[in-house]
């Protein structure tokens, strides 16, 4: 309500005032004697000395005069602000001050904003909302453009000729879905299990849980589309947990029809212990080959502030074997943490399962994190690199010495 009021005021001011100021019409619009006299002398000023004299404080008069009508309004409003109203007020002020804030904010978001513990947390949260809004807008714009192009293309197509004849009815997506589901169903009977450990809710913030679920959804979809899918297990899954809530948000009614196993049991209760391997970047053991008889466990955790050893601790507690991907062995690592996203893990594991080719599998590691792929172990490569640099340096030193000798 307040917001709307402000907007209205703004519109009124910006559309009417310049006009009013120019033509000295203030009197009719705002029956206040002071403003009237001011705008009148403004006009006179202009008429007698067209370009020489400038009233530098004129802006103050304009600002103050346009305020008169507001003063009477605001006085009646209660001065003390509380809770949400205050948060809304700061939000509006930040917006006016040109900080990175979203254009619109919902009540719920405002509450989260209010509950942020520090000013910097507040700033970060609004910035995040702002970026999200921008992305959404961009996506929408692109969609619209695409739609337009498609309509145009359709127009052209209908103009040129009749529809082509084809032996198949065009039902791509639903047939594909059926085929995928058939495969996934088969994997639930014969496929190799892959476990997502859903016991990390306590270690994560709300946003990290949201990201985790998003990544799992992507993993599940790429698993479904693969030639030979895993049989996905969600273990330690509690009904009504944050995970659960987020999954329902993502899948909606499809959540009940997913071809995966969801259980609140631990993987140690379902599978024999000696077959389980916990995948974690902190593991001292490096995976050499993909074993088709083992059951790999992936921790469903996104840790934005990297918490070392959390999943390793979990495996240690249960006495499970652990393994890390051989990233160092095959990639010349440049920067970034060694923990990968869940969907990247899924891509890598699927490729390994199908091809056993590390090079192909590790292509799913983000390119920014490494400089290149190596066939030899990195250690050996480093040795030769060192040798080359020392040789180079040695040569250079000789050259320098030669030059030095020549000069003297």
């Amino acid at each position: 309500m307040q917001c709307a009021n402000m907007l209205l005021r703004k519109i009124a001011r910006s559309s009417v005032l310049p006009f009013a100021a120019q033509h000295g019409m203030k009197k009719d619009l705002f029956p206040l004697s002071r403003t009237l006299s001011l705008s009148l002398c403004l006009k006179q000023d202009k008429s007698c000395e067209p370009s020489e004299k400038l009233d530098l404080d004129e802006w103050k008069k304009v600002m103050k005069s346009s305020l008169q009508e507001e003063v009477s309004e605001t006085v009646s409003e209660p001065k003390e602000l509380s809770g949400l109203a205050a948060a809304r007020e700061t939000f509006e002020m930040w917006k006016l001050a040109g900080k990175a804030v979203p254009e619109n904010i919902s009540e719920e978001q405002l509450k989260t904003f209010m509950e942020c513990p520090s000013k910097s947390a507040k700033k970060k949260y609004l910035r995040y909302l702002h970026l999200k809004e921008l992305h959404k807008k961009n996506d929408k714009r692109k969609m619209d453009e695409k739609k337009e192009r498609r309509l145009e293309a359709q127009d052209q197509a209908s103009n040129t000729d009749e529809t082509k004849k084809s032996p198949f009815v065009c039902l791509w997506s639903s047939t594909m879905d059926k085929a995928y589901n058939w495969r996934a169903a088969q994997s639930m009977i014969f496929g190799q299990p892959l476990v997502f450990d859903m016991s990390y809710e306590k270690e994560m913030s709300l946003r990290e849980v949201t990201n985790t679920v998003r990544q799992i959804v992507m993993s599940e979809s790429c698993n479904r589309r693969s030639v030979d899918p895993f049989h996905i297990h969600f273990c330690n899954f509690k009904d009504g947990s944050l995970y659960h809530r987020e999954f329902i948000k993502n899948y909606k009614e499809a959540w009940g029809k997913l071809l995966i196993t969801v259980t609140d049991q631990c993987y140690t209760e379902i599978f024999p212990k000696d077959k389980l391997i916990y995948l974690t970047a902190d593991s001292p053991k490096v995976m050499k080959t993909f074993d088709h008889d083992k059951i790999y466990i992936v921790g469903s955790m996104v840790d934005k502030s990297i918490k070392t050893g959390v999943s390793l601790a979990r495996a240690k507690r249960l006495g499970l074997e652990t393994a890390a991907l051989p990233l160092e062995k095959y990639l010349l690592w440049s920067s970034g943490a060694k923990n990968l996203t869940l969907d990247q893990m899924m891509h890598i594991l699927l490729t390994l399962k199908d091809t056993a080719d590390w090079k192909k599998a590790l292509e799913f590691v983000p390119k920014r994190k490494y400089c290149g792929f190596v066939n030899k172990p990195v250690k050996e490569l480093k040795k030769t690199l060192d040798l080359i640099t020392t040789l180079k340096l040695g040569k250079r030193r000789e050259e320098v010495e030669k030059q030095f000798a020549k000069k003297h």
Partner: protein
Amino acid sequence: VQPPEKPLQAEEWNKLREDFQIPEIFEEVMLNSMIRCNSPIDVAKSLLTHLAKRNGDIAYNVLVKYLTLCVQQGQVSEIRDVYDIMKVRFKVLESGAYNLLIKGLSNSDQWKMAFTLLEEVKKIMIPSRTCYESCVKAASRHQEMKLAFELYKEMLAKDVVPTLDLLQSFFNLSRGMKDAELQKELFGVLLYLRENQIYPHKTFMRSIKLWFESIPGGNWRGRLTNIKDSGQCPVCKHQLEDSNLTEEEYSNLSERIITDVIHGTDTFRKTSPEEFEAFQTFVENRLPFDIVIDGLNVSHIKSRKMQCENLFDAVNCLAKENARLLVLGRKHMLMNSSNWKREIMKEMQDKADFFFAENISEDDTFLLYATLRSGKHCRFVTRDFLRDHKACLSDSLTRHLFRKWQRGHQISKKKSFSSVFSQQPAFRYDCVVQTTGDTWHIPYKDVFEEKYSYQVPRKWLCVQQK
């Protein structure tokens, strides 16, 4: 863009605006460059006038930019006018505008107005440290020391950390004043430095010295000095405070190390319950040790040498004085390898007690536990700064205790003596601001920049009352 030198007419502004690439942000960009070039205020005014005439309104962010320019040039009446306009126009302001207003007004003869503004800010948020700083400085500049200290205490109570600059201004501005109450307050500031282990920089130290010497009838005399390793001040022959923790502090720290560092959120992250228990019984059976050695860390001292040789040198060097040694290592050290020869390991185990942790456990945590458990005389050897362990402690008070204990008990290798294993003695005296009533000893930094948290200054100011 280059701001114009003289106020422009509306038409001229219009023309400039049209020539600008993105006319929507023309005013902002122009004002920014005015702030940068410190343009005359009249130019900015003419821009605002043009804006007001065109839109009938001036946006908040533009007003703030103009305010910045006014504050920069100390245009008090302008600041007041802008404030009047803003106050009526907006219900509340955001912190940026308040900061500017308070800063601008506190530097003028209207400084009292800054205080009313500060009160206004308090209604909606915790004022920023710059707000407080401006007000406190303004009050002390006008000899209202009581008011200044009231505000200072208020800001401490709200967990707003004062800048060194602010603290320094207290000393600068109360120079030569004879006032027992004031003197007490300033001693309080020095104790604040002590409690938070803050070291003043050189110019700050000079302010403190000058203040002490200026107290009428105080007979204080300050001199710069270096404290000997024994902890005696060469100027006044006073012995500095011991670096040992009190009984209470000591037990507090040991407890917190076990709960926060070793167990943390999950004991399995650094060790396992079985292993920790095994280690505990191992230590209890052999207590107390004199020196605890981080085997793996020491074994990397010289890269040319075999790792077990490095460790061997260290153990030999430290074992001389009949000290009871404990070496912490990992199980892989027991495997006969190119770096770890079984015979040498055997020989060492006669001279010292060894505990081998699992290869994936963290041995540093055991180091801390064994040293603390052995008692106050026990020291430890490692080159590690133990920053990650300090970070595991949850509150700053315990972190300070940890640093103090570490300074007093850690032996590390000096780089200059690379041929022999030699040890840098742990500090015997405590490196904080300290007093005995008629003397003050204040460590200070030579450089203005922050030093590393494990470093302590070696230079001191000794103030003595004759």
